[in-house]
C-alpha cells in the first residue's frame, strides 16, 4: 500500500483496519467515507468558529475603543469642571487676600478720619474751633476719603477681567501690585527692592491677570519671610530681556524652598501653610495663568542674589512673557 503522509488519514485507515485497497468492502468504504466526512465537518466547524470569534472579538474591541473615547470625553469634561471649580476657589482665595490687603490699606486713613473727627468734636464742645481749623480738618478728611476711593479703584481694577489682550508695561503692572501690598510689607518689616521701577518692558496680554500672579508671589514671599529671624528682610524685583521675551525675577531672602517640595509647589492643593491660611491653589493658578493665558513660562529655583553689594539666598520666581513685537 502506498505510504501516506497525513497522520489523520493514516489513523483513520488503522482504526478501520484497512491495509489493502483492492479488497475494500462496500461496508468498509462507507465507514471510511463516514469518518473522512467527520473530519471535513470538524474542519468546517473550526473555520466557522474561528471566523465568528474573530468577528465578535473585533466588534467588542471596536465597541471598547468607542467606549474609551466616550469615557475620555467624560473624564475631560469632569476635569474641565474641576478646573472651573478650582478657578472659583482660587478667585475666592484671592478675594480673601484682597480683603485682607484692603483692611491694611484702610486702617490708616480710617484711623486718620476718626482722629480728625474726634478732635473736631472736642474742639466744638470746648468752643475752641475756628473756621480755618474746621476747613483744614474737612480737607484732611477729604484727603483720607480720596485715598480710600483710590484704594477701592485699585482693587476694582484688579478684579476687572480683561476682554482682549492689550499692550502694557510689565514694570507698571508690578508697580501697581506693589502699591497694593506695600503697607502689609512695611508692617512686616520687609523691604521691596525695585530699582528698575521707571523702565519699560512692553508685553501684550491681560494685565490684571498678571497682577493676580504677582500679588500671589509677593504674598508668598512675605509669608515665607515673616517667621524668619533675619536682620534684614528683602524682596528684590528684577527685569531683563532675553531674546523675544522679558523676564521678571522675584527674589526673597527667606532661605529657599526645601528640595523635597520644590518640584510640587505648582501642583493643585499643594500647600505648606496651615489649612486656615493656604488653599494650595495660588501657585497652581499662577502657572495656569502664565502658561495657558499668557503663553509664557513660570519657574522657581533657589539661588543667591545681591542687594547693595551683599549676598543673600532664597527662592527666585522667574516669569517669562513675550515682548510686544
Amino acid at each position, binding site marked *: 500500500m502506498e505510504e501516506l503522509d497525513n497522520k489523520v488519514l493514516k*489513523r483513520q485507515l488503522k482504526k478501520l483496519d484497512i491495509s489493502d485497497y483492492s479488497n475494500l468492502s462496500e461496508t468498509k468504504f462507507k465507514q471510511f467515507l463516514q469518518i473522512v466526512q467527520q473530519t471535513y465537518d470538524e474542519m468546517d466547524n473550526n473555520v466557522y468558529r474561528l471566523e465568528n470569534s474573530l468577528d465578535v472579538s473585533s466588534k467588542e474591541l471596536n465597541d471598547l475603543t468607542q467606549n474609551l473615547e466616550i469615557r475620555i470625553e467624560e473624564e475631560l469634561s469632569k476635569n474641565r469642571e474641576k478646573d472651573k471649580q478650582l478657578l472659583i476657589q482660587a478667585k475666592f482665595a484671592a478675594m480673601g487676600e484682597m480683603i485682607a490687603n484692603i483692611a491694611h490699606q484702610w486702617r490708616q486713613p480710617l484711623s486718620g478720619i476718626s482722629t480728625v473727627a474726634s478732635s473736631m468734636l472736642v474742639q466744638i464742645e470746648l468752643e475752641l474751633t475756628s473756621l480755618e481749623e474746621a476747613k483744614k480738618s474737612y480737607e484732611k478728611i477729604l484727603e483720607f476719603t480720596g485715598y480710600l476711593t483710590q484704594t477701592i479703584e485699585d482693587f476694582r481694577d484688579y478684579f476687572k477681567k480683561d476682554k482682549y489682550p492689550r499692550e502694557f508695561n510689565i514694570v507698571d503692572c508690578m508697580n501697581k501690585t506693589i502699591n497694593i501690598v506695600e503697607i502689609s510689607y512695611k508692617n512686616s518689616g520687609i523691604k521691596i527692592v525695585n530699582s528698575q521701577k521707571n523702565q519699560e518692558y512692553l508685553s501684550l496680554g491681560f494685565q490684571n491677570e498678571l497682577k493676580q500672579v504677582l500679588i500671589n508671589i509677593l504674598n508668598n514671599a512675605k509669608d515665607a519671610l515673616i517667621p524668619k529671624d533675619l536682620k534684614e528682610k528683602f524682596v528684590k524685583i528684577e527685569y531683563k530681556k532675553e531674546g523675544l521675551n522679558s523676564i521678571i525675577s522675584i527674589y526673597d531672602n527667606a532661605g529657599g524652598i526645601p528640595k523635597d517640595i520644590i518640584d510640587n509647589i505648582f501642583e493643585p492643593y499643594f500647600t505648606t501653610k496651615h489649612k486656615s491660611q493656604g488653599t494650595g491653589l495660588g501657585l497652581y493658578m499662577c502657572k495656569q495663568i502664565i502658561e495657558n493665558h499668557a503663553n509664557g513660562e513660570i519657574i522657581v529655583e533657589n539661588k543667591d542674589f545681591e542687594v547693595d553689594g551683599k549676598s543673600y539666598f532664597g527662592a527666585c520666581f522667574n516669569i517669562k512673557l513675550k515682548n510686544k513685537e
Partner: protein
Amino acid sequence: MKKATYLYKNGVWNKELDGSLDSEQTLILCFGTSNHPLIEEAFNYLSSIFKNSTIIGCSTSGEIYQDELFEGCLSVAILKFEKTRFKLNKERFEDISQSYEVGINIVTKLQEEEDLKSIFILSDGLFINGSKLTKGINSCLKEGVIVSGGLAGDDDRFEKTWIFVDGQFISHCVVSIGLYGENINVFSSSYGGWKQFGINRIVTNAIDNTLFEIDDKPALRIYKDYLGENSKNLPASGLFFPLMVKEKGYEKPKVRTILSIDEDKQSITFAGDIPVGSEVMLMKASFADLVNGAYKSGEELLFGKNVEDGISIAISCVGRKLVLGQKTEDEIDAVYKQFNSGVEQIGYYSYGEIAPFIENECDLYNQTMTLTLIWETI
C-alpha cells in the same frame, strides 16, 4: 515495581491478563467509558483474576492507551509495588458544598500513616467543586507531598460520571490513593497551550463556580455570541473557549472550563471557582498550540530525569479533545514519544485535572495535559 497495561475493547482484552501480578501490594487503575454496562464484564473479569489487588477507576471522555485514544473502552494499568506501601481512601458526599471538607478528610486520613509521598485522586466529575476540593487538601497537606489526579468524564455530555471502588460504580465519591515510603517516585506536570484573546474583562457577579456576569453582562450571552451556531451544543461547545482567570492576589492565572449552563439565570457553571473581581479573558487554541502544550508537559515532567521503567498517567481535558477532534492522538503521541520504551502510558480525557500549582499546593486545572509519572526505585 512490576507493571502491565491492558486495553479492553469491544468485549475483548488486547492481551492475556497476567494473574501473577495479583497481590495485596497491587494497585489497578482503570479508565473506562461512562456507559459502564459496556465494560462491566471487564471489571468482573479483572476482579476475579486480581482478588487481592485494589482496583479503582473512573469514567472518561475518552480513554488513553499508550499513544492512542479510544472510546467505549477500558484502559488499565496494573502496578505491583515491591517496597512501596499504599492506602486507599474513599470519601462519599451528598452535596457539592461538602467539597472542601472532602479535601480535608482525604489528607487527614492518608496522613495518619508515616512517610506519605504522594496522593493520587479520582473524583466524581459533576457534583464536586474542584477548587474547593483542592483548597481543602492544601489546608492540611504536609510539605513535599505531591497531589495529582483528575475528575471523571462523560464524553461531552456532562450527564453522569462514575467512580469505581470496592467493586461498585458510584457517583458523589472521591477515591484517593496514598503512596508511602522511600522507594516510590512520583512526579507530576501540567501544561495547557491555550492563548488568551479579545478584551480583558472583570467578573462582576459570581457565586463560587457559577458565573453570572462579566463586565455587568450576562456571561452566557457572551459565550453564545462567540459560539454563534455552535451555541446550540452548549455546554459542550463552551469547551472551545475556556476562561483564563486571574484571581486577585495571584500572579499565575488559572484556566477554567464550562461544566453546565442555566438558561433562566443566564449563568455558566465552571469546574472551579471564578471569584468576583477576577480578571478574565476568553482563550483559544490552534491544533499546534495544544500539541505543543502536551509536548511541553512531557518535557517538564521528564526534565533532569532518565526514567527507564514506569507508568505515566495522562489526564487531559475533554475540551482539548473537542478542539483537536481526529487530531487528538497527536497530543497523546507528543507526550508518549518522549518516554523510554520501559515507560507505559494509560490515561483519560477528563472534566478537570489536579496537579501541583505552586510549592506545597495543588490546584484544579482545566484544559491541560496533566501527567503523573510513577516508578519505584529498589
